[in-house]
């Protein structure tokens, strides 16, 4: 999706050339005022002085970024060292989101491939089956997941009644629960772009490889995978980026014990800390990371399109 809007298709048709600026005006007005201006305002806030217990004082300072990157001890007067606290939180989020992405890929790729190789008439039905859960409110899906996984929940009841385990598996309030929650939340985002790529893949190439005595798994690795790489990358981005900023899964499934990026930022505005400039700075760091990632992705896409 992130790459989808950026192409815009062929520019040959120019029927409404004379009105084009008027036609674009409403979208510019809304998006500049409600998206771009707020992001710029957030950038400005990250350089302001914090007001005790929430709010800002209009005096420029680098304090928020200083707090993010440098550790000056519990009392703020030690010589500055690299601050590991927030790097740890960011790293944990990247790690959790990364594991969720890998898990989604392991399940999502075969699913997408399987669907794309069904007869054309049933394909849409399979896609339909995968997308329905995505339309269910994320909150409800996360809560359902928690209900299913809890110590006295249906999954443990079932496993105990079948005699597979004696004691309930403790999953809720662990990192595993967070990864499972993220994986579950965004799985369809992985399946759909890969499906779109595999559907366009020319299976004559696989047949050619088979004629040359390549085993099926070699064909998959050396021929199919490179051909559908853009879809795989798009899927990974679509799972990884929202997982990175998630706070429902850590909050509801992880027991709010460890901050993730999303909960760290939320805490600055709605929780105990009340440090707006720091929250804005953390959000800017997250935004910069995501934009760099998307730029790398866009370049990869362009390269893939250039070399068919």
């Amino acid at each position, binding site marked *: 999706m992130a790459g989808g809007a950026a192409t815009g298709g062929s520019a040959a048709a120019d029927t409404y050339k004379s009105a084009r600026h008027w036609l674009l005006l409403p979208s510019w007005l809304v998006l500049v005022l409600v998206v771009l201006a707020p992001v710029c305002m957030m950038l400005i806030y990250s350089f302001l002085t914090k007001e005790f217990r929430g709010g800002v004082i209009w005096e420029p300072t680098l304090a928020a970024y200083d707090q993010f990157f440098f550790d000056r001890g519990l009392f703020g007067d030690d010589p500055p060292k690299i601050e590991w606290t927030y790097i740890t939180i960011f790293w944990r989020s990247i790690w959790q989101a990364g594991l969720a992405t890998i898990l989604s890929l392991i399940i999502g790729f075969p699913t997408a491939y399987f669907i794309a190789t069904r007869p054309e008439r049933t394909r849409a039905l399979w896609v339909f089956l995968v997308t329905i859960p995505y339309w269910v409110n994320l909150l*409800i899906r996360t809560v359902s997941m*928690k209900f299913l996984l809890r110590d006295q929940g249906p999954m443990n009841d079932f496993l105990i009644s079948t005699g597979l385990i004696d004691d309930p598996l403790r999953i809720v309030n662990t990192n595993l629960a967070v990864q499972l929650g993220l994986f579950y939340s965004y799985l369809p985002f992985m399946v759909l772009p890969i499906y779109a790529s595999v559907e366009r893949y020319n299976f004559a190439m696989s047949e050619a490889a088979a004629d040359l005595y390549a085993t099926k798994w070699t064909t998959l690795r050396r021929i199919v995978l490179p051909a559908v790489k853009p879809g795989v990358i798009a899927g990974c981005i679509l799972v990884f980026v929202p997982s990175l900023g998630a706070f429902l899964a850590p909050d509801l499934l992880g027991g709010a014990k460890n901050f993730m990026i999303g909960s760290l930022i939320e805490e600055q505005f709605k929780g105990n800390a009340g440090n707006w400039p720091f929250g804005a700075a953390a959000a800017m760091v997250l935004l910069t990371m995501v934009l760099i990632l998307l730029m790398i992705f866009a370049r990869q896409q362009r390269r893939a399109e250039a070399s068919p």
Partner: protein
Amino acid sequence: MSAKTDVKNYTGFRTLTFVCLFILYAPLVVVTIYSFNASPSITVWEGFSLRWYGDVFTGPESGKFKAAAINSFSIALIAATLATIIATSAATAIVRGGIFKTRTLSLGLISLPLMVPEIVLAVATLIFFNAVGFTRGYMTILVAHIAFCIPFAYLPIQARMQGIEDTYEQAAMDLYATKAQAFRRVLLPLMMPGIISGFLLAFIVSLDDFIITNFVKGAGVETLPTAIFGSVKQGLKPNIMAISTMLLALSIVMVTLSYVVSKTDNTK
């Protein structure tokens, strides 16, 4: 079995597909089943009952949920409608407006809400409304929803418009139709499936949003997701499961509708 199907099939992929569907549906199925539980405790099964569905409409929390549902649906309807109009007009300029300087920039701007992580957008919007001194309430939620719905409405509309040859409109104009007439009488009817999918997509995205709404909502204005969050934070209750099941059913109806609409596609 021919050689062609053979290179397509991999052992285990079918199994993993069923695992995938199982994972996707298991939690939803469990919640749906337990929403029909007679017991007030969510852990014990006491037989089939519709009491929690009644509770949603008449119970102690019914007022709260009714108000939240009215807010949610009216916001989703207005936001999706306006976003669809804005997106249709932008798509017309971008797909049918020739090559011009701000074209790529406009595309970037429209996809911005998809690229910025939701929590960042939420914080930025909160700061912005605070800085300009807007009182938070129904209007602030609505404005934010219109903005982030635009790309979701835009994508299917653009895809659809690219699939329509501009020869139809050219032909109309050769027959002395004005540009406005060509747009209204020729392009728009052809565009309808794309516009409807875009509208439905935007509608669901708005109905579903929790993070941004939670940051920009004001006193006493709840939407369904924020009201549900307030309730489930204190533990999953059977009436929440009933609401979830109803929302699930609604989502299925909407997706089916958009599926049927895309099937009745008359140009393919």
